[in-house]
């Protein structure tokens, strides 16, 4: 890990990998949360009727 970060251009290369991975993970979490909310809303509106 140290070797990766220490070599010239290590940080920007590391960020080029890390940023998309973090963004992707955030996207998956956001989608799962939003879908779960929608499912709950639908369930509640179904029970209310």
């Amino acid at each position, binding site marked *: 890990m140290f070797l990766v970060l220490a070599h010239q251009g290590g940080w920007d290369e590391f960020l080029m990998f890390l940023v*998309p991975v973090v963004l*992707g993970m955030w*996207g*998956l979490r*956001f*989608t*799962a949360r*939003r*879908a*779960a909310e*929608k*499912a*709950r809303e*639908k*369930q509640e509106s179904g029970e209310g009727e």
Partner: protein
Amino acid sequence: MSVVIGSSVLAVASPAWAHGVGGRQDLPFPLSYFVSGAAVALIISFMWIGISWTEPKLQGGPAYRTSRLSPVGRWALLLRPVGVLSLLLVLVGPFFGNGFAPAFVVWIGLWLIVPFLSVVMGDLYTFLNPWRALASWMGMAGRKREHPLGLWPAVFAFFGFIWLELVASSGSEARTLAIAAVCYSAWLFGWMAVFGVDTGLEAADVFTVFVRSVSSISPFGRHRDGGILYRGWAKALTVLPQRKGFVAFVIAMIGTVTYDGLGGSAAWRDIFGESVDHPMFETGALLGVSLVIGLLYYGAIQAAIYLSGSKKSLTKTAASFAHTLIPIGAAYAFAHYFTLVLLEGQALIGIVSDPFGIGWDLFGTAGAAINYTWLSPTWIWWVQLVVIVTGHILSVLLAHDRSLVEFPPETAVKSQWVMLVMMVALTGLGLFLLAG
């Protein structure tokens, strides 16, 4: 003379028969850009589908529209004698001419052209199947009794067929193909005699299972009354019977093409050295790559069960999601071999005039030469990219739709996280192999 020219062209192209058209180093952009772009496309598709697709829409199976007939239609019945003649051509191959027609019939016609056309036009093989035609003419029964092995006999036959293609050094020789055709005919007639034509072919005929699986993507299908009608794209995938061995067959579809790509790559030779040419190694690697794909799939399914918070059986859930891998298998096969069809497939023009390679010129096309220059590498790459990404997006969509049925709606999207990662990995691997 024309035969000599045609033979020379095919002889020069012989390595391509086994491994498609080689990779390229002249991509318009670095490969990493394409892999990243494909991953982004998959993740965005997953997000869009996850949020907007809140109810299962594909699980009801196909609804046939009587107003729109398949382009195959009743003409399909004419394919029957073509199938029988093709089998005859393979059987008599060693006794006549140059032996190119049998190799073409098996490796290009039966293995590539028929499945590829079936993805669009519906199951053509049912009409072409020479063993079905012969059994029908012999008056064999359609269904006698069920058997307990599911699709495992077809899985066994599938690996045998792929072994002949990728491992056996004489897999394209007319003599080998004729012997294989005799053995395979005996195998199928045995199954049909014991269990009936339909049951036997559904269990043991690798082409029936393969083409039926990929043609489930087609918008055209056969209705219960026998007519070929419009049903919509990918509608039949969700109602494919989840027989024993179904998961193994679908995984073998992906695993064997992956092995073919890996085996031809420079990286593979760098890692394993000279042993890559040893038949024992090749056989082990063929099975090993499929096993790895299988373990990845079962791992993703186990993760889906865990993330959804349900307590479903791993085996049943794996069978339930297996159809979602079929578009990936079809896309892998198409992207890997479509150049072979478009280039070597031109040999058909010459073969129809001189099927036995003995100097006939029935339609005046025996001397037709293959044009190897009409496809540009860049154009091929874009087609491969679009096919691979579209296949994976369709798989993501199918898996999401099935997860809404299998898992609680609140956790259905979450359950597909690992499956998505697997599909991104398979996309990257597919593109790497095609570009390598």
